[in-house]
């Protein structure tokens, strides 16, 4: 009897969990099916939960609209995102290493300044950043956006990597010095290979933040050669009198696929990074 009761409970929980997952992920499902429906079915009444035929008509239309401008947005975003990741890693790895292992006069101040970026969101600095970018002729350039992303997304990476370096035993550092290795070598050949998980977390964090940014790209770019994919979707969304929901849904789907795939593949690192980014452990 008890066993049977337990069995029922298990079934109820499974059904309940499935239901929760279904309701929770329904918006994404609805986005996917709308993107693959044919144009008549999108506006059909009653709405069809499963398309009668799966078609890439909407994607064709999206990618060929205005001389393939959507592809341009996609490529822009990819270039900007990858460059930001590279730039941040190149500058924050040595910095985190120095903050963890090579304390110098004023290293506390450097750390506090980096902490300050966390406290002052870039949303407060839109106006001075705009005037700065125009002054140095980087308004409406990919480089301008990359530099701003790098500045405001690097604190996370510094916290992550500094912690990773601090957690490695001090004896490792001392023995390397006794062997006569220089600091750069110690960092690249010894500490970096031991901190791969943290670096992966940084890369995922940077990818998702940069790829998903809207406001900076929206404010600091004015041409289709710079705008990112998020602003690109909005261009399609607000272009016509009546929105073309097929195109919007297919554009949205293209924009969310890279981050969702990355998240699902490297879930562990992502969550670990997110958590330690918010709470220092």
């Amino acid at each position, binding site marked *: 009897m008890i066993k049977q009761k337990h069995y029922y409970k298990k079934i109820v929980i499974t059904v309940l969990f499935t239901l929760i997952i279904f309701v929770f992920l329904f918006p994404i499902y609805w986005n996917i099916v709308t993107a693959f429906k044919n144009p008549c079915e999108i506006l059909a009444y009653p709405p069809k939960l499963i398309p009668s035929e799966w078609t890439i008509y909407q994607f064709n239309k999206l990618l060929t609209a205005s001389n393939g401008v959507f592809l341009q947005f996609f490529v822009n975003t990819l270039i900007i995102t990858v460059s930001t990741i590279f730039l941040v890693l190149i500058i924050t790895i040595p910095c985190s290493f120095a903050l963890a292992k090579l304390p110098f006069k004023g290293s506390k101040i450097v750390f506090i300044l980096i902490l300050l970026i966390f406290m002052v969101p870039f949303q407060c*600095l839109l106006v001075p950043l705009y005037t700065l970018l125009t002054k140095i002729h980087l308004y409406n350039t990919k480089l301008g956006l990359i530099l701003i992303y790098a*500045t405001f997304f690097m604190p996370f990476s510094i916290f992550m990597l500094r912690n990773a370096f601090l957690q490695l035993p001090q004896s490792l550092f001392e023995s390397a010095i006794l062997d006569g290795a220089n600091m750069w070598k110690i960092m690249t050949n010894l500490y970096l290979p031991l901190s791969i998980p943290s670096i992966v977390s940084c890369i995922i964090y940077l990818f998702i933040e940069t790829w998903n940014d809207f406001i900076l790209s929206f404010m600091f770019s004015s041409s289709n050669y710079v705008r990112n994919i998020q602003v690109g979707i909005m261009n399609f969304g607000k272009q016509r009198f009546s929105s073309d929901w097929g195109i919007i849904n297919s554009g*949205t789907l293209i924009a969310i696929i890279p981050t969702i795939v990355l*998240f699902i593949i490297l879930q562990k690192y992502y*969550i670990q990074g997110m958590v330690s980014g918010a709470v220092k452990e």
Partner: protein
Amino acid sequence: MKNKNHGILFCLPTLILLSMFFIYPLINVLIMSFQNWIVLGTPQFIGFKNYIKTFQDKEFWQVMSNTIIYCLIVTPMIFIPALFFAVILKKTNKKNAILRTSLFIPCAISLVASSYIWNWILNDTYGILNFVLFKLGLINEGINWLGTTWSARFMISLSVAWKTMGFSMILILAGLSSIATSIYEASEIDGSSKFRTFFSITLPLVKPTLMLALVLSIAGSFKGYDQFVIMTGGGPMRTTEPIIMYISKVAFDHYEMGQSAAISVIFLIILMLISYYQIKLGDYND
């Protein structure tokens, strides 16, 4: 001895970027807020005039209250489900792992994407929400969800809560997992009910993490922008216009850079106060 030079050399690129794109703009926004900045012509110092003008501005108080109302709606919408799911998914097994992942997936998508996804669901003529409610006999005609003030505020909050709930849940889960199981075992031996255990043991022990998740979602709601641009554009009647949208309007539509800088500084002070708690709770510094 040589090490001391190395340290600062290693930090140099970071420091250059930091001073150019962070320190300089930060100082500049403070200076600009005391200036009469018109796009052409040289800026003049005008003391606190920008601030006085801001505090006398009816629109400023409108966007402030919009932002605060939004914060008050969205925070419980994120927080209560996050706490609920964190508690029921605390045990690590396969079923829980699948549900956790599913609840976290929306965190990976952008606010622009989630806003469009919800716009399509909420569409007044073709939206599936209206269809479902109509079939259930709850409504007689399609509701324009984003067309009236309060329903727009709730629906924007719903879409954001859907997108960000997973993050708070993961944070709370991290806090829960740090509670030693021996405490639960002891309370079980003492015969306390699940309800009692939750309120007398779990909640107090996980309080710092809860506060952190709370502060993060409050700060996030103050910084909200994308969702408002996409879902309502600030309407109806500017009742969903957040502070950031106002700052950018004053700067880039009215060309009043000084005024916009003053609003930015006020906003910055509010956010600094909020993130002061974040850092205190997160304990970043050793």
